[in-house]
C-alpha cells in the first residue's frame, strides 16, 4: 500500500523541504497550466523586462506557485474541463530554471528532467511532480474549476488557472538532487 501526503498550494519552503522522491502526493488548490508556446511567451517577457530594467508583466505571479504541463482536450458542454493529462516535461527544460529563479515552487508533468533543471531545483528549492501520462480523464475529475487567464489565442496551449482537489502525483525530483527515475529504474533492472 502506497501512502499519500496531502498538500495545499501555494507551497511553502517548509513543505517542500520535507518532500522526498517516491512520495505519493494528493495536491489541492490552484495550479496554472502552461506548455511549449506559453512558456516561450512567459520567458520572452521575463527577458524583455530584464533588458528594459522593469518589472515583468506576467499573467500570474510565480511566487510559491505550481505549473502543470498540460494542453487539455476541448471541454464538452456541461463539463468543467476536457481530459487533461500531463505532457512530456523535458520540452519545457530550457525555460524552467528562469521560472524557478522567479519563485516557482513546483512543476507537474511526465518523464525525466534535464540536469540543468535538477540543479536549478536544488538551488531554488523546488520540486518536480509526475502525474500518470495518459490518465487524462481520471485527472480531469480532480479539477473543480478551470478558467483561461492568458493566451487564449493558443487554443489548447492557453494558460488556465485550475482549482484541483487531491490531484494524484509522485515526487520525481526533490530539493536534494535525487531523481526517482534513476533510483527506481536501477532498483528493478535485471541486467547489467
Amino acid at each position, binding site marked *: 500500500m502506497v501512502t499519500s501526503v496531502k498538500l495545499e498550494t501555494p507551497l511553502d519552503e517548509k513543505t517542500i523541504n520535507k518532500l522526498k522522491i517516491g512520495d505519493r502526493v494528493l495536491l489541492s488548490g490552484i495550479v496554472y497550466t502552461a506548455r511549449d508556446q506559453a512558456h516561450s511567451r512567459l520567458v520572452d517577457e521575463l527577458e524583455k523586462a530584464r533588458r528594459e530594467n522593469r518589472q515583468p508583466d506576467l499573467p500570474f505571479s510565480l511566487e510559491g506557485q505550481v505549473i502543470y504541463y498540460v*494542453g487539455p482536450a476541448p471541454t*464538452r458542454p456541461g463539463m468543467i474541463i476536457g481530459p487533461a493529462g500531463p505532457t512530456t516535461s523535458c520540452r519545457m527544460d530550457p525555460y524552467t530554471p528562469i521560472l524557478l529563479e522567479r519563485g516557482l515552487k513546483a512543476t507537474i508533468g511526465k518523464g525525466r528532467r534535464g540536469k540543468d533543471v535538477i540543479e536549478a531545483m536544488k538551488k531554488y528549492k523546488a520540486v518536480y511532480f509526475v502525474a500518470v501520462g495518459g490518465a487524462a480523464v481520471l485527472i480531469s475529475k480532480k479539477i473543480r474549476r478551470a478558467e483561461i487567464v492568458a493566451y487564449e489565442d493558443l*487554443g489548447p496551449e492557453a494558460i488556465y488557472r485550475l482549482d484541483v482537489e487531491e490531484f494524484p502525483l509522485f515526487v520525481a525530483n526533490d530539493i536534494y538532487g535525487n531523481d526517482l527515475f534513476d533510483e527506481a529504474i536501477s532498483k*528493478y533492472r535485471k541486467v547489467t
Partner: protein
Amino acid sequence: MREIACEKVARAVENLCISSNCHLSEDVRGALRENLEKEESPLGKEVLKQILENARLAEKEKLPICQDTGFAVVFVEMGQEVRITGGDLYQAINSGVINGYRSGYLRKSVVGDPLQRKNTGNNSPSWVHVDIVPGNRLKISVMPKGAGSENMSVVSMLSPSEGVQGIKKFVLAWVRERGVNACPPLVVGVGIGGTFEGVAKLAKKALLRPIGSRNPEPFYAEMEYELLKEINNLGLGPQGLGGSTTALAVHIEIYPCHIASLPLAVNLQCHAVRHATTVL
C-alpha cells in the same frame, strides 16, 4: 468496378477518429491487467491501476482516453476494383478527420507549418497511406498518434554485418534511453528491411497488430519474444517509475532489402494503444 462514395468514406473516418480515441481495445486492457498482477513495484502497480481506471472512465463517458488525441495517421487498403465517386479520396479522409475531431471534442494538435507553428484549428491534414490490394473492398484504419511516443522514435541504417545482435542491441539501447518519456508501458513497433522511408512505415504498421499476435515467421516471433523479455528486464516500468512492465509487446515487421543495407526503425507507442478499423 464497385463504387464507393466519398461521403461514405468521410463518415467512416469521422466515426473511426472518435472510436479509436475513446475506446481502449480489449487486447490492450487484457495485457495491462495481466501485467498489473505481475508488476513488482508498488508505484508501478499504482500507475497501472490509474491507467485501467482511466480507460474505464473514458469508455463510460465517451471521452478521449488521453488529451493528446494525436496526429491522425490513416492506413487505407484499397481494392483495385474500387472506384471512389463524388470527389477526392484524400479530401474525403481529411473532412472525416475534421468532423470527427470537432464532434468528438478531440484536441486539435496540428500546426500548419513545422516552423511557423500556427494551429490549423481542425486537426487536419492527416497523413494517409494508401496500399492498392486485390478485391473490391476499402479497408480504413485510423491511428491517432500522440507526440509523446512519436517523438521518441527513430530510423537507423545499420550495416548488414550487425545482424540480429546489432538490431537487438540498438532497440534495447533506444528503449533504455528514450522509453521513459514515451509513456510506458509501451508497444514497440520495429521495422527491419526495405528502404529508408519504407522501414518507418513497417514500424508504424507493426503497431496496428493486436497485442498477443506473433510475427508469422518463427524466427521473428522468437525475436519479438526475446526482445520483450529483455526490454522488461531494463527496469523502466510503468511511466519510467521503476518496475517490470516496460513494454506490453514487441511487434516486428520485415521486408526484403538491398544487399548493402539493413534499415531499422523503432516506432514507440504509449500505453494508449489507439487504432480502429472498418471495411467498406
